[in-house]
């Protein structure tokens, strides 16, 4: 029966929608609390309990409390959303018990949002309407900024109260077909969930006149399709951190309840799988993925379509597919967020992948340090089994596939595919020589496809919206988006998903809000410990696998650390090298011995004992490790050194020649002195000095005994007269 898969899927949908409708969320007030490891750490479970108590004691039946995963906006968690029907959704940041009470009383019951606690309150006002104009220039559309200003002007001219209406720029909605690319813009109207297609100024006039002034929908401009991540924009579209992102892999994060099968179905879950199984043509899936130009999101950037094709060329019919969720980069947490917040999506991607390459078994290799992610994936798998999405005869298609979870013990190297395979096999997690590649001979010698969790998270979207669409989102060589973990010296930190080709500047300034305290941006470190530092002068670099490699860094799994003038580049290189040195598996000589020697030289330099010759030795070793190591980790380990040596050589020279650290980070190179002119002899420094090396009588200038000084900097911190000079 050719239509049986669709029938199966429609039955699932009908059942899920019924359950979903029964909750009557459209008519009720919804309070949404984030639930993920990061949210829990910030106290979201207490917040959830507190809301529950409030709802019960209020006796109201029209308030629904629900949980979602995390949005990736970790620094502001716990994040709580309050959705009152017909009103703009309001999100609160850093909610605690006391704030719960205020939110419940003032906002939920009283209808008045507490504006000072709104997420990113410094930028976001609570408004009635919001118009989000797409500003993706990758389709060829150049007018986003202009059209937004024209529209704002028109609103003013029409006498609209600008407190009521907000006009923002967003990233691509994915609503253009191929034929439309570059010829129009799309406007998303929140909270109405209406998408307009705008081609001329006359269209804008129409929206102002009808929609804004009369509150009527402009039907002729309305686009039937929902934009990708419509639900995400519904909830978070007003937040500058989010609305410049294109959420594809993270589309359901912070939207769906990660533990609800019905919700996932409601948000188009398993639609792609149904499409794939209905067609029953693995080659079609591979073609779509190839068309999408999806490249490995774990950092290697190998074209996924080619990898899948290679596995299918093998005559061996027992094949495996592995989801690499052994996220090891310090500061990277996109895989965890995805698996905790949208576990079904990863599973759907894996089943589709398994079908495409002809695998019968899949493994999710996830680090044991992610207990919540493991629990949610486990839970999701159980539900999938229950509803016929995993196991024998998936969705009535005859396709049999199952997934097992394997836990990683936390070695960084196990993110390397051959080491990961060894680990699953129960061997010591160490890379082995390639070729043969895993797609030829992998797990237990069988053809094995390994993709990163983020790669799988994109698959369903590619099937649903088409490979062409996904490809258009990115650059010429790589389609789609990439999730970055933005951190460091930037105002807004968290997960950022942007189309490939977005510039570093857009990410740091437009989404990240720039460097705090208006300090100077010095560099952006990408790619985790194996990445490099890209100097601020290259901030307009369009981020892609190849451009980053050319710049001496790597995409890696998407770590992005913003560095400002206070960061010492030698110290940064040392930090990353100490990580790589510690995580080296020890198999090959250059990585095992070389990283140790590199680290020793860096320690010598930051310790004040470096010489100019050390810089040559450093470079020689770094190049050796880079060119001779066995696996990708060893090869990339010296990147932090090579890139900083290239772009910040002057800082190295300052350390070894002038014996000073320009950023005043390297303790051994700092000198503290007291300016006799400025010192009033208050004795505060002397009393605070742990080494008791500051002498001086009351009301006379104090003196630091440099020989005894431990350079702790306490005197510098406590002096209120700027008399302590640090050089």
């Amino acid at each position, binding site marked *: 029966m050719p239509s049986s898969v669709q029938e199966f899927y429609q039955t699932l949908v009908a059942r899920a929608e019924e359950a979903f409708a029964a909750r009557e969320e459209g008519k009720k007030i919804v309070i949404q609390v984030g639930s993920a490891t990061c949210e829990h750490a910030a106290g979201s479970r207490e917040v959830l309990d507190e809301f529950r108590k409030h709802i019960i004691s209020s006796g109201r039946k029209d308030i629904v409390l629900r949980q979602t995963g995390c949005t990736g906006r970790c620094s502001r968690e716990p994040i709580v959303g309050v959705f009152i029907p017909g009103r703009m959704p309001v999100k609160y940041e850093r909610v605690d018990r006391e704030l719960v009470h205020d939110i419940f009383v003032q906002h939920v019951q009283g209808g008045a949002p507490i504006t000072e606690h709104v997420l990113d309150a410094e930028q976001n006002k609570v408004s009635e309407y919001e118009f989000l104009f797409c500003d993706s220039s990758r389709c060829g559309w150049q007018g986003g900024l202009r059209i937004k200003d024209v529209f704002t002007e028109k609103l003013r001219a029409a006498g609209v109260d600008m407190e009521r209406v907000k006009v923002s720029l967003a990233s691509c909605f994915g609503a253009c077909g191929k034929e439309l690319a570059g010829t129009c813009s799309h406007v998303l109207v929140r909270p109405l969930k209406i998408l307009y297609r705008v081609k001329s100024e006359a269209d804008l006039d129409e929206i102002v006149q009808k929609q804004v002034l009369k509150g009527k929908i402009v039907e002729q401009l309305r686009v039937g399709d929902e934009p990708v991540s419509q639900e995400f924009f519904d909830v978070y579209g007003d937040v500058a951190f989010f609305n410049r992102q294109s959420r594809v892999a993270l589309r359901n994060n912070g939207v769906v309840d990660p533990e609800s099968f019905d919700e996932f179905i409601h948000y188009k879950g398993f639609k792609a799988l149904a499409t794939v199984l209905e067609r029953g043509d693995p080659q079609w899936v591979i073609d779509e993925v190839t068309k999408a130009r999806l490249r490995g999101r774990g950092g290697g950037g190998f074209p996924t379509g080619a990898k899948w094709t290679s596995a299918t060329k093998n005559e061996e019919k027992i094949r495996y597919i592995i989801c690499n969720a052994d996220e090891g980069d310090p500061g990277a947490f996109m895989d965890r967020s995805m698996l905790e917040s949208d576990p079904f999506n990863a599973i759907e991607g894996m089943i589709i992948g398994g079908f495409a390459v002809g695998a019968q078994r899949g493994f999710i290799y996830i680090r044991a340090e992610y207990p919540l992610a493991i629990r949610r994936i486990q839970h999701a798998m159980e539900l999938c089994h229950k509803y016929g999405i995993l196991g024998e005869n998936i969705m009535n298609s005859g396709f049999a596939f199952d997934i097992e979870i394997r836990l990683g013990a936390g070695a960084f190297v196990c993110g390397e595919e051959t080491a990961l395979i060894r680990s699953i096999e129960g061997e010591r997690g160490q890379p082995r*020589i390639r070729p043969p590649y895993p797609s030829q001979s992998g797990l237990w010698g069988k053809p094995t496809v390994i993709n990163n969790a983020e790669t799988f998270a994109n698959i369903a979207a590619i099937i649903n919206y088409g490979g062409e669409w996904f490809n258009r989102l990115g650059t010429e060589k790589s389609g789609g988006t990439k999730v970055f973990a933005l951190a460091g010296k930037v105002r807004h930190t968290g997960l950022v998903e942007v189309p490939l080709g977005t510039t570093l500047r857009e990410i740091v300034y437009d989404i990240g809000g720039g460097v705090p305290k208006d300090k100077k941006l010095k560099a952006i470190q990408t790619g985790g410990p194996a990445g490099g530092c890209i100097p601020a002068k290259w901030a307009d670099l369009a981020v892609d696998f190849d451009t980053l490699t050319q710049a001496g860094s790597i995409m890696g799994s998407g770590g992005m650390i913003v560095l400002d003038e206070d960061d010492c580049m030698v110290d940064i290189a040392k930090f990353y090298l100490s990580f790589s*040195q510690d995580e*080296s598996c*020890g198999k090959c000589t250059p990585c095992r011995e070389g990283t140790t020697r590199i680290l020793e030289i860096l320690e010598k330099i930051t310790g004040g004992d470096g010489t100019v010759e050390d810089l040559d030795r450093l470079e020689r070793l770094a190049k050796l490790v880079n060119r*001779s190591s*066995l696996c990708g980790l060893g090869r990339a380990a010296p990147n932090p050194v090579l890139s900083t040596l290239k772009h910040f050589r002057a800082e190295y020279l300052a350390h070894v020649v002038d014996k000073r650290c320009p950023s005043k980070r390297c303790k051994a190179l700092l000198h503290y002195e007291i300016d006799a002119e400025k010192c009033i002899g208050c004795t505060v420094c002397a009393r605070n000095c742990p080494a008791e090396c500051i002498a001086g009588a009351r009301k006379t200038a104090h003196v630091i005994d440099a020989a005894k000084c431990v350079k702790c900097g306490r005197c510098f911190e406590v002096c209120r007269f700027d008399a302590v000079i640090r050089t």
Partner: protein
Amino acid sequence: MAEKNIKITIDGATVKVPPGTTIMEAAEQLGIRIPRLCYHPGLSLEGACRVCIVEVKGMPFFMASCSVKVWDGMEVQTNSPEIRQARRDIVELLLDNHPKECQTCERDGNCELQNLAYTMGVRERYFEGKRKDLPEDDTSAAVVRTPEKCILCGRCFRVCSEIQGVNNLSQHHRGFNTVVGPANLINMDDSVCIQCGQCINVCPTAAFLEKRHTDDVWKALADPKKHVVVQTAPSIRAAIGEGFDMPPGTPATGKMITALRRLGFDAVFDTNFGADMTIVEEAHELVQRLKNNGPLPLLTSCSPGWINFMEKFFPELIPNASTCKSPMGMLSTLAKTYYAQKKGLDPKDIYMVGVMPCVAKKYEARRPEHMMADGRPYTDAVLTTREMIWMIKCYGIDFINLSNGEFDLPLGFSTGAADLFGTTGGVMEAALRTASEWITGESVDKLEFTEVRAVEGLRESTVQIGDYTLNVAVANGLINAKTILERVISGEKQYHLIEIMACPGGCIGGGGQPYPPKGMKVLDPALLRLRAKALYTIDENKQLRRSHENLMITQLYEDFLGEIGGQKAHDLLHTHYHARLPRGIL
């Protein structure tokens, strides 16, 4: 359908090689020997040392020539200045984390790392820093582990698992702290180590060595009250010459005997006598078991590495093992009983030294079952071939120009069958020579049972002796033994006699044999063939080639032991085994 040869260019020269050839192999066809360290043709590819890196046009990284297979049109540079510097630096990195004690190291002059450093031109140290500081493990009676000298090439744990199937050695910790040792880094003595010593053989440095007995032997030789006797195992004569730059496969029995006399040994005996004894007792055991319905198959017991393996991995097969002591064990026992009695010596004054190709023999000599009633060992010291060579050199003996000596009697007389003990299939062949006559009760012309010479590691055959159709098997290298023993346990086939030698090729490939001469590798089949050939030649040139024809043995039974397989023979020449912990995981 033969695939077309691939054309590649190496250092400007073109060569055509079959698909699947590695860069290293292709280069060798052009006479280019790419330096290497962790690579070993008999083991799996590790690709860890990175010494054999080459530049391949179009590749951003250097490639390990041992593992990368050629592709059509590949252009390789093996000797660009960058490559030479990279190789030099890699070797320096290894040296920087290695003790600076070459002159006092037992491998001085024979160390692959040292030679490589010289060849690569490491004349200066640029990157020195901290070094690993790990304690020596000398708990084992046979194998000493010195992790400080380990360069993590991985040959030891590969030989331990891939050739021996013991899996005792593996890597622990990671990165700079990586260390090779038994599980959980327990002491070697408490591990499943079966003391075969193959890790010593393959180690490029001195991270694994045999437990040194030379000091004790020097002391005994210098003690006028001691009657110091020595016995040399069958395979020593085929390999000792290599230590003095004689071509591999040169028998050096006579020179060896003279050298031992010069060292001051009071009597030079031949373990071959013990081998003949073993055959007499073991063939008797076989005949008895055939007549009395088992237990069969009878498993040979000459190889102490194999005995250790059996006790730890296959304790259920202990009843099958021959109870005969090893030839060394038999000879030592006879020296301190029969010989002592004949010479009127107090056994306490006899100091017995075994020169063995084997390090497990050092352990065997210490086993309680091999002790005299007063708790003293029958064998006081066991020297490996390597230790013997060193002692001869140390003594300033010009080995090559020595005249030929003869073994002392009676314990130095042997038949050709005994010589075969040194190579795989030898015990089987010797046993069949005797058993065939005993079973049929008449003389049998057939002497050479070439079908049991298991050059490939494992061989099964069927031998017809009289009314008996005997299924026999010969295995060397314990991974092969494992295969056959699993068949025994599953009952898949009924075997009657199985010869097992722990080391690849038998004793000629033993863990105590000389490090291979230049241009050859340990486990090199060519080298093993040459050593084996020496033994076959000796056998062919002997007049008596069946153990039971050994006249001295006949006399020994008449004068001292009584009946073959009798009570006295049993008390003195047989032993027993017991399951030992930790039990190995198969």
